[in-house]
């Protein structure tokens, strides 16, 4: 059966009651905190980080309360809307500022606020020596508020507002160490590439307004069935365009690796756990649109597959620990996109993987931060080695994340990634095989990372003294590590049914997840086998007894060279966009200078030259003026007389 043909009707939201009606506080609390922290100035330096963390924790508490309340409701009452006020109204359009609290957005709220709070706590320790820690927490709170607005919005325009908000927060945080030119450039790059994607979003929203007359999710979902195939395909592709930039999917992926210039908690929160998954959220939210267009959903699958391989490729060839993780993030989001593109059968798996990825990737980024903290901010894995003995807690928690991402049985990734690979096989054999290859490569580069960092001989310089991080940093690590190990087990049997009313998963039973999903099907066994192969290959090349050179060995291997250069993403952008853009600018400038300015200046010169000649007539002699007048009057009279006669 083709799941594309059986999208279930999604539940229409009912007006919110009780604690859910206060959902706007989720956004307001961190927003107000961000404002206070930014306005209060130096006076808040001593307690600013506590206020920021408190705001995030309050949001988390509220999110949990709303979630628990929702658990107690019957299925059809779980999707609730909170209408705040009419934001824009003119002509036939009324765009409300409303929130939609349903099964999907509440999951995101939990992920954002809980992982966000843990990262806030971690940052207290990580940024302890930074003179601008207060501002850092203000930006983090701003991000939390914008991200919550993004996932809670009940229409595309409010979502776009949050979308821009997280873009701004991301820019501010990537460039947080603005005194480094590389950080400033990376922030600018992320901002510009995201603007490119925003253009797609903006056109998509305009198209919705023009054709449907509404931008609310419920309105668009209802109208999608009647829209013409061309419109709906275009809409799907435009939304995918926007999602590509935000989620660092090929071809708009180039910013994510550079974004690692930001402080590590930022990489964990924004560029791994939450913001970059906004594209997956967008596709899932727009499921009704993709349900009606085979072309656009195929494009989502293809882009997801390409990105999951490209990210894994980059991850294999980098020595910078954060860039390996960034490549891996790209790759995992590629898996989510792939699942989201498959259609109703895949949405729940995409979100499932998104949540588990939020846990284990945030965990590993924070672990990487902990390692960097110990190694004097050195990020080159070739300078690590043998750290397991010196940083046991970081090693254990990082190991939990590692097991989760490669899909070790019963860890989080085991459930979520296997589902995606199985769904991919069911969708298309080729895509399934590529997803399987991605899983093997993931196992390889993550094992490589583990071995180079924690295993083998020590390779650091004598003046570096690795030490375990303080408790304020390790406790979030431990909690996230537990979530990485147990999160999949906990959510596996539940998440499909939970999300089904919100994303219209047509055939949950067909994929009825079970504890032994990974062992029940041949694909599960094959997945485990290829993962094992990836791990073994990594052990062969980077095993504990191997000598790893201090600098990356020079190589002509085209695969390695391409990977080290981010698959030439920058060169591609340069050649395809930047250079033609510059040439166009130069051309326009030449036309402006030569053509438009030239015409105006030429005319001005002509008038000036004429006036030099003509002004000589003003001699200052009254009598000559009088003569001119007399002669003129005589001529005029003569003309009048002569014309009268004829």
């Amino acid at each position: 059966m083709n799941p594309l043909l059986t999208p279930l009707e999604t539940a229409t939201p009912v007006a919110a009651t009780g604690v859910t009606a206060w959902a706007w506080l989720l956004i307001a609390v961190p927003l107000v905190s961000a404002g206070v922290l930014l306005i209060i100035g130096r006076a808040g330096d001593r307690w600013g980080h506590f206020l920021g963390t408190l705001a995030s924790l309050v949001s988390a508490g509220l999110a949990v309360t709303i979630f628990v309340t929702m658990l107690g409701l019957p299925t059809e009452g779980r999707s609730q809307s909170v209408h705040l006020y009419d934001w824009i109204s003119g002509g036939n359009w009324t765009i409300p500022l409303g929130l939609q609290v349903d099964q999907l957005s509440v999951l995101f709220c939990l992920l954002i606020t809980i992982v966000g709070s843990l990262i806030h706590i971690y940052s207290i320790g990580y940024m302890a020596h930074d003179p601008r820690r207060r501002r850092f927490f203000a930006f983090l709170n701003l991000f939390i508020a914008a991200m919550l607005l993004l996932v809670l919005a009940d229409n595309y325009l409010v979502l776009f507002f949050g979308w821009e908000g997280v873009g701004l927060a991301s820019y501010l945080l990537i460039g947080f160490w603005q005194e480094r030119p590389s950080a400033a450039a990376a922030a600018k790059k992320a901002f510009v590439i995201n603007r490119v994607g925003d253009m797609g979003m903006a056109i998509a929203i305009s198209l919705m307004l023009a054709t449907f007359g509404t931008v609310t999710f419920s309105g668009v979902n209802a109208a999608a069935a009647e829209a013409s195939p061309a419109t709906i395909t275009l809409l799907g592709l435009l939304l995918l365009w926007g999602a590509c930039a935000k989620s660092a999917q090929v071809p708009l992926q180039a910013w994510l690796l550079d974004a690692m210039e930001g402080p590590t908690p930022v990489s964990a929160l924004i560029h791994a756990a939450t913001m970059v998954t906004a594209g997956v959220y967008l596709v899932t939210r727009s499921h009704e649109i993709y349900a009606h267009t085979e072309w656009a959903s195929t494009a989502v699958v293809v882009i997801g597959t390409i990105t999951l391989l490209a990210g894994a490729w980059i991850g294999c060839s980098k020595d910078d620990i954060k860039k390996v993780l960034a490549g891996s993030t790209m790759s995992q989001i590629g898996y989510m996109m792939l699942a989201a593109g498959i259609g109703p059968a895949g949405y729940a798996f995409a979100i499932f993987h998104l949540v588990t990825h939020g846990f284990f990737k945030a965990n590993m980024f924070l672990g990487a931060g902990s390692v960097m903290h110990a190694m004097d901010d050195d990020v080159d894995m070739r300078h690590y080695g043998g750290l397991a003995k010196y940083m046991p807690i970081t090693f254990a928690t990082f190991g939990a994340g590692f097991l989760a991402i490669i899909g070790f049985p019963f860890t989080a990734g085991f459930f979520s990634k296997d589902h995606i690979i199985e769904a991919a096989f069911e969708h298309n054999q080729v895509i399934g095989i590529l997803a399987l290859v991605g899983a093997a490569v993931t196992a390889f580069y993550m094992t490589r990372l583990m071995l180079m960092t924690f295993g083998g001989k020590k390779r650091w310089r004598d003046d570096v003294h690795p030490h375990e991080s303080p408790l304020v940093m390790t406790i979030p690590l431990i909690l996230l590590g537990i979530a990485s190990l147990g999160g999949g087990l906990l959510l596996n049997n539940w998440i499909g049914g939970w999300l089904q009313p919100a994303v219209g998963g047509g055939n949950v039973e067909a994929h009825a997840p079970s504890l032994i999903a990974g062992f029940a099907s041949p694909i599960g066994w094959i997945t485990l086998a290829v993962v094992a192969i990836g791990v073994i290959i990594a052990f062969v090349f980077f095993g504990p007894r191997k000598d790893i050179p201090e600098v990356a060995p020079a190589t002509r291997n085209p695969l390695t060279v391409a990977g080290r250069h981010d698959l030439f993403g920058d060169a591609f952008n340069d050649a395809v966009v930047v250079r033609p853009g510059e040439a166009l600018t130069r051309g326009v400038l030449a036309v402006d200078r030569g053509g438009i300015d030239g015409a105006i200046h030429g005319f001005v010169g002509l008038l000036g030259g004429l006036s030099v000649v003509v002004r000589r007539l003003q001699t200052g002699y009254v009598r000559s003026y009088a003569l001119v007048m007399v002669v003129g009057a005589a001529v005029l009279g003569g003309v009048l007389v002569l014309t009268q006669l004829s």
Partner: protein
Amino acid sequence: MTHYLVLSALLFTIGAVGFTLRRNAIIAFMCVELMLNACNLSLIAFSRMHGNLDGQLFAFFVMVVAAAEVVIGLAIIVMIFRTRRSASVDDANLLKF
């Protein structure tokens, strides 16, 4: 009738030629008056010819304007003479390109 108009044209021509040829400001001024009065003469002649009072009315206007012009014009000439010790119109040629 023709005589009046011929006289008027003669007077106007004398005034115009005098204005363009003479340098003395007072003379030039008198020439302007002569031209104005030549116009007055023709206006009154036409008034007589058409048998209505329009022309005479205009003549009064011209006289009033001429009187006002004399007041201001003479004052200017006196000022120029005081500052430059000369009443030649060609000497006052600073207002030019």
